[in-house]
């Protein structure tokens, strides 16, 4: 009754482990996956990924990307995945400052800025806990 959770970034396979339950940040909120979940392809937002196994919870910060659920395999493709305790408040503040300095004079620029802001705020929420 276990699902296999794999997180890949372009650099390496960050983690590959079995889990009972996985909670991941979709673009509009959290999404939980348990055994025998229906096949899903989804867009990830920035936020926290939680993997529960035997009462232990591993938490990671993921910065957007995609998820594919198939045959009890959960595959996350993200540009960045780091354990939550490595996210510091300073780094989050820096990301937030950088994001809010981006220009937003055209719709395209505004969209890019909003994305960066969302990612920075998600980092902030995790760092503040």
């Amino acid at each position, binding site marked *: 009754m276990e699902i296999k959770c794999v997180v890949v970034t372009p650099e390496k396979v960050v983690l590959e482990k079995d889990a009972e339950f996985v909670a991941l940040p979709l673009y509009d909120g959290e999404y939980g996956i348990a055994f025998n979940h229906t096949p899903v*392809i989804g867009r990830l937002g920035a936020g926290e990924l939680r993997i529960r196994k035997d009462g232990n919870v591993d938490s990671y910060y993921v910065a957007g990307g995609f998820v594919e659920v198939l045959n009890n395999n959960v595959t996350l493709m993200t540009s960045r995945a780091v354990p939550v305790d490595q996210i510091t408040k300073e780094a989050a503040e820096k990301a937030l400052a950088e994001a809010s300095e981006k220009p937003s004079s055209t719709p395209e620029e505004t969209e890019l800025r909003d994305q960066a802001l969302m990612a920075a705020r998600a980092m902030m929420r995790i760092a503040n806990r």
Partner: protein
Amino acid sequence: MAKTKTLNKRRQSIRSIRKITRTMELISTACYRGAMERAMSAMAYTDRLTNMVRNLANAGAEVTHPLLVGHPETKTVQLLVLSSNRGLCGGYNGAILRRANRRWNELTGNVADALDQKVENPLLDIAGKRGISYFNYRKTKPAQTFTQFEDRPAWDEVEKIANGYLEQYLTGKIDRLEIVYTKFFSMSKQAVVHETLLPLSELGSGDSEKDEAKSNLNVEYDFLPSAESILKEIVPASFKTQLFKCFLDAAISEQIARMVAMKAATENADAMIQTLTMAVNRSRQSQITGELTELIGGVEALK
């Protein structure tokens, strides 16, 4: 007497050079293994991405994305050249820079038979000190230079650059992005290639035949939020991975080029040491013979 000494000295210095080239060969071999491993892990990501694109396409998603569409007029062309920071890697940099310079001349309209390639505003970005000094010597001012890429290009760094290009392309500051780098085909084949990265020609890179078998044609996925919206997000991700792959390929090719060059240098040093050893022995022997004849002559004269 003097001759033997100088010959010995030369032999000694060649020996120490051989030691250095041999060490460099070993180092680049190790770097090459590391780079190869990284490329393999990058493949895991690109393969999955390509697979996902296929699944989405099977679900009937049609995508129109600004990155896939060329701009109506091509005025500003960005040329990115990936060279290495350090030399001693044979013809690696020479080949890239020759190619890059040719393309650059075409873009600036300096080649008579390729005037149709000329654009109003060509921009040059260079990665690697070798390329920077090459274009500096030719009095060509690059728009941006990068020297932070050694044998292991970091995703974070590449992503920053990629984001910069994406923003510039989407906001209309550049109309095309071209790249000149050394593509890695296999251990024994690497070649300088010139490719257009933006507008994107295809989604995901990887040979389709292999992936065809893996894709799950008969699985019905739920798409969150919708297949179109996910495809839209995949387009920039696909560009970033393509750019990252270029950097990885360049890093691997550089290490292979250095390995080959250093191996040849070591072998040459071996051959030189051999001939010099022979010369040293001969000169020592002739010296001894000369001394002996002198001695015998002296003894004869005393009789």
